């Protein structure tokens, strides 16, 4: 348990990269990139977790209750938005590529070589 969340993050990163390397469809590749990115959320939040901590949202008066790290959560939020926008942009590129190249198979893209 002490390292499991970290290792899971590493696994997600690697499997996502594996998907990118072996992908035969660019849309699928963009999906794999999104998977890869989710490893960063997992690692961020795992790092910020504290045993027995509650969410860092206070209802009224400040209490001494133990809270998990709010900073990593803010970073993860930023990260999620970044990920979604990058995905959108790459999908837009794939979509146009399909129109101009007639394929979404990376093996068939042949314009840039050497």
């Amino acid at each position: 348990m002490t390292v499991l969340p970290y290792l899971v993050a590493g696994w997600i990163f690697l499997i996502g990269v594996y998907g990118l390397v072996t992908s035969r469809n660019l849309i699928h590749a963009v999906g794999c990139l999104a998977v890869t990115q989710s490893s960063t959320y997992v690692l961020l939040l795992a790092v910020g977790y504290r045993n027995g901590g509650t969410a860092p949202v206070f209802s009224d008066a400040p209490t001494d209750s133990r809270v998990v790290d709010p900073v990593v959560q803010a970073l993860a939020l930023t990260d999620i938005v970044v990920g979604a926008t990058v995905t959108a942009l790459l999908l837009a590129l794939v979509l146009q590529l399909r129109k101009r190249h007639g394929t979404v198979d990376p093996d068939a893209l042949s314009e840039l070589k050497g």
Partner: protein
Amino acid sequence: MDTARLLPLVVAAPLLGAAVLAATGRWLPRLASDLLGCAFAAATAASALLVLFRAGHPGPGAYPVEWVGGWRPVGGSGVGIVLVGDPLGAGLAALVSLLVVAVLLYSWRYFDEPPRHHTGSFPALILVFQAGMCGFAITGDLFNAFVFFELMGVAAYALTGFRVEEPKPLQGALAFGVVNSLGAYATLLGITLLYARTGELGLAQIGRKLDTAGPDGLVLAAFVLVTTGLLVKAAAVPFHFWLPDAHAVAPTPVCMLLSGVMVELGVYGVARVYWTVFAGPGGLAHPAFTRALLVLGVLTALLGAAMCWQQRHLKRLLAFSTVSHTGLFLIGVAVLTPEGVSGTALYVLGHAGVKAALFACTGVLLDRYATVDEHELFGRARGLPVVGALFAVGGLALCGLPPFGSGLGKAVTEEAAGHTAGWLPALYVLVSAVTGGAVLRAGLRIFAGAGRRPRDQEGEPETTGEEVPETGQRLGRIPAPLVAVPAALLTASLAIGAIPAVASAVGRAGALFTDTGGYRRTVLDGRAAATPALPPPHWQTTGVLLGLLSTGLAIALAALAVRHPARTGRPALLAPVRRLQSGHIGDYVAWLAAGTALLTVLTVPGIR
């Protein structure tokens, strides 16, 4: 008002401009939206220059430091984001801004037909790009650097794929986007590891905390992961594959920015992170860093030069020359001396002007002849003597001809590198000669029709240079900005090398940059870093002679190639290297993973 207050404006001003352009662009005539874009870019450049001026003059506190939102640290620990206007960072922001102004002027008459109802979108994206690059240059916070890294990435992907009617830009932009995003995620994993260890995000704070303990596997992993993303941006071998694909196909004004400053910001990031975070006793030992970057730098320089020589697609040729020069910059950073840093900074300054000017000249060819293919253009541009002269001067400056800024940078860097390994100056001469020679060869063929017409070779995969003009139709007359901008850029590059005050300012910047303790004290404690007294970089006899030697070699190479196209065209020995540049995204990602492993192997001894 305190000059430090200007620091956030260097990022905010172009963003405001972008928002205004995005909102009103649809109703503005082309001229108005271009003017507006130029005005915002120029205002940003002015504030960056003001900060730089202030940073260049020692006062109370060596350079401006601004905590955004007024969250000043108490007792060395804060909760905010810090922006640091040290001379090198502020100087880069100023360089970016000035180049953006030049690019916006250049594209004034460039795209004949902006996307309908979205007239302002091109300048708006350029302004966002500018904000991202400036933010990356001046931030003193690791996560903030990641945000700006992504910001410049997103703007750059969109700009690269701007001409959606063509298949090539889309493919290049996609490879660019996927590989760079992946690198950014690796960086974020590294940042998270550092946060888990130190509980801090500021560069100075992380560095201080790391130094309270010895280095271990976690520090190594954090270094490798953070550096991976930055090296992807810097296009170091084997992370470089995206660069030629993207730079060769992006609209020419965008190429000027990508090759001129964005790639160099990756090198800057590596140096900045190492010097502020990992240079202390708790970080990565100096010899390990030097070895790793030296190996990658030499590989990058050689491979870039070899590929550059074999290209016939002009923009691709220039892109590979950027790869090759990035290798030289990495070597300058690797030697870990103030001289190496200031030499590299001068080199980057000079190179930015020269490379942007060369791309600008290529853009003229593209729009006039609808091709940037060296073979097809053979002798066709005889009627453009001015552009030809600019192209030739750019080629000579790329070789390191004194007194260009690129020449001074090369001289100072190779001198500094020579202290680390005696053979490094030879590499600088060789690489400058080959890349400069390739440019001169293309110039001789295209603008003078010199030598014999080269014949196409069969059987090898290659990218030829047929393109569609980026203006609405082929240019008949060359509009003034398309010539004035490269001329101004080359003049600026000349001035950087010729005016001693620039060199001494850069020398001071390099000294401050490499003062790890001084940086942390200035940022966290508000105490002035003592300006180290070092002899400013200047022209030395050896440097001048080596510069002349590489220029001479380049001219000889170009002349030989023009005379005997068949024998000098494409050595069969290099065919496997050529084939690696396959245009396949899966390949590039696989190389990225392998590069991370290589970096690990090279740096492992640094934690013992």
